[in-house]
């Protein structure tokens, strides 16, 4: 180095460039996180093992619909296609899905310490929570709405003429959508709220599964030992029964007399209130937990 | 007889060879195991500690196979690299547990002494989960020293320690070595081992690249020129004079003096004083500038 250069000191331009392009804001961050979480809910973008559970459950959810449409097509008996009962069949799988995937969305970030990475972006903690919630609900919508739309189109295809059948049937799309949204919200809320308490994915899986197992068993037991008005209200504590009641109310269908929901004979709005209540509690719990992380 | 002996020891995992046909002997004193990340240092140390069996060859500790009975651990201790220690225990409880598992009669007393040795007395009754990384390293070392082992193996023990803690630990290890303990330390930070290790094992890509005292290794590296920095009363004149010497093939004037590169160490050291006296220059300082562990290491790694 020459004497002159040593005296002055130079900084060489190695070509490092600052990013001068457009910086998309918070809204974009939320949307991106939503999209990413939605894909994670199906194991996309992860290894093969991560896809196993979600894909299997999707399969099991669609299967009753496919079978029914198939049989209807073969025998021509349209009456077999009954939307109101469908969700009831797949309730077990929906619960399993929530138990399996809610931890993937919420607990992996806690377990591996990547939550701080998210929050150091223009993403607030509440945004994070909202994005995750929407993602899991949307994923569950695929599981609830998808098969029912399949049933719907099956019904159309079986009919003799397409357009008149559509005109007759299109109104059922509203309760289909409503029921699916309600069920998705319910299971997503429960899954996320319980998962947020756990420090490892495994424990979160167990917590959600344990919750469903125990509430079913305990409420069923209480149902059998209570009577009168109290017995009717006990029905509101069981997640699957609540979902059934809600769906029946939307479809304006009398539940089967022998079923629990049928015998409870509660005004349909009650089920809606319970679902909204559960969502509200879950979101509050999540909000309280994640609010403190906004540092 | 050496305490630790590797006889053509190899270890592979499927297609990946972690340790490749390594043979060496380690005796009392401090031996450094040096090498870049992924060189196989941890694998070798775990084999010596009896946690891994060699895929071929033998690993002998104190005359017995390393992967032997649990009794061998009465005189051996390992400080693993992973910083995980049971978080729900206090430092004192962890060290005392270590002592109890060793079957010491006075576990509490031994634990107290070990904790005092690593200077952790003020924090010993706090849960390990609240410790800093350096403190966790120290509590692991305390757990290893509690039964005064004859063989002490440390895997990157100074990770996360600040300089003051490091110096203190080095003192502790020197003390242990002076009492006859065989200490093996692995590191990829050369400064740590420079002052500490009497001899080194240099590992590169699973093979043993060199072993012994690093100054001796340096002397053996004859195909690499030696460099000396000479300060004198007239550097420029000295540079011109010394250039005439056949053993010198490079001369550079720098701030610290004349930097001389020579291929023949012996001849240069004989000729330099004569050249200086003939030119009427007084020599003030002669420093070999590349006998540090770093230059040895760089050379070995890049070979």
């Amino acid at each position: 180095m020459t004497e002159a250069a040593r005296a002055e000191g130079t900084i060489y331009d190695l070509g490092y460039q600052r990013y001068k392009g457009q910086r998309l804001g918070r809204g974009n961050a939320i949307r991106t996180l939503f999209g990413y979480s939605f894909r994670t809910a199906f194991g996309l973008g992860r290894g093969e093992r991560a896809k196993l559970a979600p894909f299997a459950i999707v399969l099991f959810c669609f299967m009753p619909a496919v079978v029914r449409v198939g049989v209807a097509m073969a025998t021509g008996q349209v009456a077999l296609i009954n939307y109101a009962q469908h969700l009831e069949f797949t309730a077990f799988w929906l619960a399993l899905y929530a138990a399996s995937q809610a931890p993937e969305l919420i607990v992996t970030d806690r377990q591996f310490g990547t939550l701080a990475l998210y929050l150091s972006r223009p993403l607030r903690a509440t945004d994070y929570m909202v994005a995750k919630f929407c993602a899991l609900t949307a994923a569950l919508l695929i599981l609830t709405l998808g098969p029912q739309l399949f049933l719907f189109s099956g019904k159309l295809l079986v009919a003799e003429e397409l357009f008149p059948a559509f005109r007759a049937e299109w109104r059922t799309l509203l309760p289909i959508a409503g029921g699916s949204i309600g069920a998705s919200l319910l299971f997503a809320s429960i899954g996320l709220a319980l998962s947020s308490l756990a420090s490892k994915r495994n424990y979160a899986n167990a917590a959600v599964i344990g919750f469903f197992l125990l509430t079913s068993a305990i409420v069923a037991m209480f149902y059998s030992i209570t009577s009168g008005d109290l017995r009717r209200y006990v029905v509101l504590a069981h997640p699957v029964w609540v979902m059934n009641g809600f769906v029946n109310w939307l479809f304006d269908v009398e539940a089967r007399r022998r079923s629990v929901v049928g015998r409870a004979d509660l005004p349909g709005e009650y089920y809606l209130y319970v679902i909204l209540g559960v969502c509200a509690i879950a979101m509050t719990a999540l909000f309280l937990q994640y609010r403190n992380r906004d540092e | 007889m050496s305490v630790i002996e590797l006889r053509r020891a190899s270890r592979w995992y499927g297609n990946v060879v972690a340790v490749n046909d390594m043979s060496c002997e380690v005796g009392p004193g401090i031996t450094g195991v040096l090498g870049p990340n992924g060189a196989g240092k941890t694998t070798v140390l775990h084999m010596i500690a009896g946690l891994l069996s060699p895929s071929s060859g033998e690993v002998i500790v104190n005359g017995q196979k390393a992967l032997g009975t649990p009794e061998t651990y009465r005189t051996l201790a390992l400080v693993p690299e992973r910083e995980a220690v049971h978080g729900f225990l206090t430092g004192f409880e962890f060290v005392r547990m270590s002592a109890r598992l060793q079957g010491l009669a006075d576990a509490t007393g031994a634990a107290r002494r070990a904790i005092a040795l690593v200077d952790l007395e003020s924090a010993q009754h706090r849960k390990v989960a609240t410790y800093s990384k350096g403190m966790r390293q120290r509590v692991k070392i305390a757990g290893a020293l509690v039964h005064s082992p004859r063989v002490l193996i440390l895997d990157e023990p100074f990770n996360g320690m600040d300089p003051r803690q490091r110096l203190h630990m080095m003192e502790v290890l020197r003390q242990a070595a002076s009492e006859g303990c065989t200490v093996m330390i692995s590191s990829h930070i050369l400064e740590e081992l420079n002052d500490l290790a009497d001899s080194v094992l240099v590992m590169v890509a699973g093979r043993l690249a060199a072993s012994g005292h690093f100054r001796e290794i340096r002397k053996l590296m004859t195909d690499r020129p030696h460099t000396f920095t000479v300060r004198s009363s007239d550097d420029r004149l000295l540079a011109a004079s010394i250039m005439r010497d056949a053993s010198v093939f490079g001369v550079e004037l720098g701030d610290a003096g004349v930097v001389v590169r020579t291929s023949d160490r012996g001849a240069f050291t004989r000729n330099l004083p004569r050249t200086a006296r003939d030119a009427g220059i007084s020599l003030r300082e002669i420093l070999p500038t590349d006998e540090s562990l770093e230059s040895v290491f760089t050379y070995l790694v890049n070979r």
Partner: protein
Amino acid sequence: MELPINRTVAWLTWRQMFAQRRIWVAAGIALLPAVVTVLFRAVADPSAEQTGFFAVLQREIVLGTLLPLAALVFGTTAFAGEAEDGTLVYLLVKPVHRWRVVTSKYAVAALTTVLVIAPAVLVPWLLLDDAALTFGIARSLLAGVAVGAVLYTAMFVLVGLLSKRAFTLGLLYVIGFENVLSRSGAVGAKSLSIREFATSIAQSTGDAAVVLGAPAVPLDTIRNAGAVILVVTLGIAIWKLARYQLAERV
């Protein structure tokens, strides 16, 4: 004769059982049936039979769900937690036989399971005052809990050593396999279900059979099958730990 365990390893495992948040899980499991019983006394019909409630509570909830869940939590903690956190090495480089490490951890895990489930049996029993619920029933229930804990914990300790996803596998076993087995009619199938073993032991005294139902599995079968399960699972666990090798960063 010296106990076939190592006291220090046992002490460590005991401390581990309740570390992190597990203490809350333990409390929840222990007290949930009590809460349910309190609710029962508050809201149930006067005509509702206490014995019927108690039977369903103990069979379905305590023995059927809480017992395997507790054994799962504490059994998998014994090993899976350590291997994952990287702290298992401290037990392996000590002059302690590896088989003792296994037995010590297992014993503490099984004991913890029993201690956590015992309140789930006793507190509801105390809260109910039906004359038919004698102490003998509570005692046989505890015996069933003990047998179930011993067997379930052995299985989950082994699973913890075998797989990182141990917990999920154990969970699938509990909800899937055992539920299917116990609901199926085949008697043969019932002989494979630990839940049925526990229940049958609980039902084995005269009083208990009246309240809880008749045992489905004969005592002999339980004794033999149970012994086999215990020996095989612990044997494999010991063998596995003896061969356990700690590589870099694993």
